[in-house]
């Protein structure tokens, strides 16, 4: 890639929330981007009135691309012509206006309440025209179709699949201690389409996605003690899967979605890692150590990474569930490393690390052990990889309030998702959604 990426420590763009703010929205702000973002013109798409419900598809696509910090959209007022097909695009003219790419497209109504979006990408430097992608989405959620187009455009230009048509889950907390209200939400990755999954006067924590994105596991204290639940995202059907004596915590799905790695303490208070078979309830103990063993996560190959303070302070360890080998310590940089998460390709470890007196998000190359601290705050936590492995979402603090933040895994691009009410925390990025997009 020919991008000359240098840090820019100031705010580049402010992207305001989309229409229909019937409830508290998350608002995205790029706090650090590349100095030389790719200039792109996303021309307003030909509309399908009234099937498109008034949604500005091009605007959604432009915001998605800009949210990565790697693109700069052309202001519409500067567009002399507004073509809707690649054939109409006068490449030299757009080039003269300092664009590298032009995106044009059309929205059309299909039968059965479906809407189709067709997009075309023109590289104005080479004159190359790429027809497609197109996506089909229900009129009721045309935004998802727009996100899929953005995913495909991002891949055509950057070479990595975009993660815009994905969801995040997070916990929101309102009120002052000791009377707080806890809620679990699912939203699109840009914060839109927020849906409340659960509300409770007692803590909700540690949400985790199933690999198919249909279920959420979490810990709820609604019975005053901890219990682990799995809940179907669409139907809301909720099942308690572990409410044993002591701690029931830190659920995380296996790559096949059939098991949960969980933390149990029993009544003697010794936290260890277990594997819970969801269909049978069968439990297999994975660790047996008097220290705190918790926050297990399974890598794509089934290796289990977890936090343990068996050495006196929390560090990351790994074990293979099939083997009887002792867990091996993975982290050796710093006095506090916790909450491991593994990249989708299994090559990188994200974690919470104590860095110069502050709790920050770091990434470790599992092959060579190199550690890079990615964030700059004082009290950050809960890193979670985007399904394309390019970004991490995590919780930070802004003026004493919990906010969600994202950072690219190379540390170059940072953004903040502010909630306009209450505190948000424990973000977890869901998987890629089943695709209906055509390349």
């Amino acid at each position, binding site marked *: 890639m020919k991008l000359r990426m240098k840090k820019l420590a100031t705010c580049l763009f402010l992207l305001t929330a989309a229409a229909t703010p019937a409830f508290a929205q998350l608002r995205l702000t790029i706090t650090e981007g590349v100095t030389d973002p790719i200039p792109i013109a996303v021309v307003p798409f030909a509309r399908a009135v009234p099937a498109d419900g008034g949604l500005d598809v091009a605007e959604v696509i432009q915001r998605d691309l800009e949210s990565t910090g790697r693109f700069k959209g052309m202001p519409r007022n500067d567009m002399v012509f507004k073509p809707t097909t690649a054939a109409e695009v006068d490449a030299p003219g757009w080039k003269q206006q300092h664009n590298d790419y032009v995106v044009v497209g059309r929205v059309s109504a299909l039968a059965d309440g479906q809407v189709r979006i067709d997009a075309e990408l023109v590289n104005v430097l080479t004159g190359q025209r790429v027809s497609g992608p197109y996506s089909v989405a229900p009129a009721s959620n045309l935004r998802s179709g727009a996100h899929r187009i953005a995913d495909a455009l991002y891949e055509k230009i950057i070479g990595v699949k975009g993660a815009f048509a994905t969801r995040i889950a997070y916990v929101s907390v309102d009120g*002052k*201690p*000791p009377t*707080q209200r806890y809620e679990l939400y699912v939203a699109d990755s840009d914060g839109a389409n927020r849906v409340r999954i659960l509300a409770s006067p*007692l803590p909700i*924590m*540690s949400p985790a996605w199933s690999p198919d994105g249909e279920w959420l596991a979490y810990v709820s*204290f609604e*019975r*005053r*003690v*901890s219990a682990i639940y799995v809940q179907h995202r669409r139907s809301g059907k909720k099942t308690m*899967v572990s*409410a*044993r*004596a*002591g*701690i029931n*915590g*830190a659920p995380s799905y296996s790559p096949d979605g059939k098991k949960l790695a969980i*933390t*149990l*303490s*029993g*009544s*003697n*208070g010794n*936290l260890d890692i277990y594997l819970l078979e969801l269909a049978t*309830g069968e*439990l*297999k*103990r*994975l660790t*047996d150590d008097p220290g*705190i063993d*918790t*926050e297990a996560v399974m890598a794509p190959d089934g290796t289990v990474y977890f*936090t343990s*303070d068996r050495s006196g302070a*929390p560090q990351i360890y790994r074990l*293979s569930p099939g*083997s*009887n*080998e*002792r867990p091996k310590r993975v982290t050796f940089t710093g006095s*506090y490393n*916790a*909450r491991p998460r593994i990249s989708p390709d299994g*090559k990188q470890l994200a974690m*919470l690390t*104590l860095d110069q007196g502050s*709790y920050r998000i770091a990434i470790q190359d599992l*092959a*060579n052990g190199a550690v890079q601290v990615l964030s700059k705050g004082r*009290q950050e*936590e*809960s890193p979670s990889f985007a399904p394309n492995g390019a970004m991490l979402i995590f919780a930070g*603090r802004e003026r*004493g309030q919990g906010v969600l933040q994202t950072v690219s895994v190379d540390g170059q691009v940072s953004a903040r998702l502010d909630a306009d009410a209450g505190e948000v925390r*424990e973000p977890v990025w869901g998987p890629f959604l089943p695709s209906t997009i055509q390349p």
Partner: protein
Amino acid sequence: MTIKKLVSIPALLATLALLSGCPSKKPDVPPAPPAPTTDTTGVEDPNATVGDTDATAGPPGELLSKRIVYFDFDRSDIRADSQSIVAAHAAYLAKNPAQKVRLEGHADERGSREYNIGLGERRGQAVRRALALQGVAETQLSTVSYGEERPAAAGSDEQAYGLNRRVEIVYLK
């Protein structure tokens, strides 16, 4: 990134793959004991229903009315200034064997949430052991850890942290 580095990463990966493929050593830890429960349906704690407590409930008295034990940073040992409070509750509970208490452990907000659940549990267990050593029956005692999830005080300063690192002794109805 240099070409050299690009070559060395796959080489390292291959080495790792070889290592993990080696025959495993015999374990020097005993096989896993059964899960810490006999319960298969899930629910075990009969006290675990909402509404079983009254925050103000508990025996009266200068020491007994103090039902919060505070802890130092990263510590789970009961401080000297809290020993008399724990002793007073131990004496009362030993004399009233039908009375049950739940020991609710908490941590301050720094660090990882689930790890802090572990730290809160350690504190709850420390109070539980102290009470048991002073004659309280195990059946009178249960623990729960809320980690950093239910702070007593808002704020990100030493004063708030000190108020939040605590075990609350909750008298059950």
